[in-house]
């Protein structure tokens, strides 16, 4: 086993043994081993033939001027690459400036597009329109309310006039609300009907106030106009009032006028 290992190790020395590159000690070792080992001798023979073949191979020499031209050609390449690198460095240096500037400009342009005066104006206009819409909505509401209020007051006045025209007292007090048009008369069943109608109408008004603002305000007016003092009631009242007024004597008329003056109507 040791002998086998030694032969394998000695095989590593054979190439240098053949080329004469071994030192004296290793050369003696191989000499002795070659005398004893046929396997090592066979390997030695094969390796020697290999080296013989390799040594016989002559590499084709390059042209004679090749060695003279090599250095200038190397310098040409170095110069060409230096120029190329220089130009590339210049380009890259320019790009180092251009790219950030372009980026800033692009950012500025985008910013301007996003925040342009037109957009700002349009946005402002939108805001204004929204505000106007909101304001107009409230104005419309207010106007509608005012109109409604005026109409209710007028109707209340008419009712009061009609009532007073029948010779009855106009009851004013905490229970009387011009806005709501609650008017009560002591002895007149018609007045009670009217008051009931007014109450109902006021309930309707209150209910309608709670509903949608914009459209319902107008509907509310119409409802009030038609429901608070219906035309046939007013017409009836006018005829009766006229006939009653015509039937009044002088004192009663004077008293009625005084009462009317006291009522601030």
């Amino acid at each position, binding site marked *: 086993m040791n002998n086998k290992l030694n032969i394998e190790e000695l*095989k*590593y020395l054979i*190439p240098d043994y053949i*080329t004469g*590159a071994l030192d004296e000690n290793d050369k003696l070792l191989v000499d002795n081993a070659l005398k004893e080992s046929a396997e090592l001798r066979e390997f030695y023979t*094969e*390796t020697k*033939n*290999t*080296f013989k*073949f*390799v040594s*016989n*191979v*002559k*590499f*084709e020499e*390059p042209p004679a001027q*090749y*060695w003279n031209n*090599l*250095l200038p*050609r*190397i310098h040409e*390449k*170095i110069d060409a*690459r230096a120029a190329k690198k220089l130009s590339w460095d210049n380009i890259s240096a320019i790009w180092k400036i251009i790219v950030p500037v372009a980026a800033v400009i692009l950012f500025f342009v985008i910013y301007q597009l996003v925040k342009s005066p037109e957009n700002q104006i349009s946005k402002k206009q939108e805001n204004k329109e929204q505000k106007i819409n909101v304001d107009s909505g409230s104005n419309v509401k207010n106007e509608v309310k005012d109109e409604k209020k005026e109409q209710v007051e007028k109707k209340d006045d008419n009712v009061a006039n009609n009532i007073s025209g029948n010779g009855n007292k106009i009851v004013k007090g905490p229970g009387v609300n011009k806005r709501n048009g609650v008017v009560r008369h002591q002895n007149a069943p018609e007045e009670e009907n009217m008051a009931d109608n007014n109450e109902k109408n006021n309930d309707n008004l209150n209910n309608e106030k709670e509903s949608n603002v914009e459209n319902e305000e107008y509907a509310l007016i119409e409802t009030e106009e038609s429901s608070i003092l219906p035309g046939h009631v007013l017409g009836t009242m006018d005829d009766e009032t006229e006939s009653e007024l015509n039937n009044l004597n002088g004192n009663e008329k004077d008293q009625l006028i005084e009462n009317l003056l006291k009522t601030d109507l």
Partner: protein
Amino acid sequence: MAPQSIPDKNKDLECVRAFKNGDVRGYNEIVRKYQQQVYWVIRKMVQDHDDADDITQEVFIKVHTALRDFREESNLFTWLYRIATNYAINHIRKVKVKNTVSVEIVTDPIEAHEKDGGENLDDERKRRILGEAIETLPPQQRAVFNMRYYDELPYDEIAKIMEKSVGGIKANYFHAVKKIGEYVKQRIGN
């Protein structure tokens, strides 16, 4: 091919210092001094003259770039060899990726008149067979074989160039010789 002796280190350092001081003559001197050695190291590895020429130029361009960073305690000759060997190995690997060695080349039948121990083979055929044999070697074994057989560099110097252990280099050399012998034997029937 005459064996390459390790050049005078001091003279190399003078050239390096001159180049570092801006004197291009230092670089030119280094190129003239080592161009043949570098070329043949490469040529024996890549076989083809044009490839060897291109790689040699690339090696010296690399030297021109890197020489300013060269540490003076190092051996310029070893440094140059390392660059040349690495460039050649990289080239071989690239070529191998492009053109994998065909099995048919290895098993190509040899004409009867070639099987005479190679005595009657012309130089071109010998070169071709040796080239094929070397191409069967891994790049590192090729480099070691060339440095040890042709340039007769000592193992420790090859170990420095290849940045491997001496034992590893000895093993590389042994296996390279063995593989070449087996291939040549197969081809010419030694």
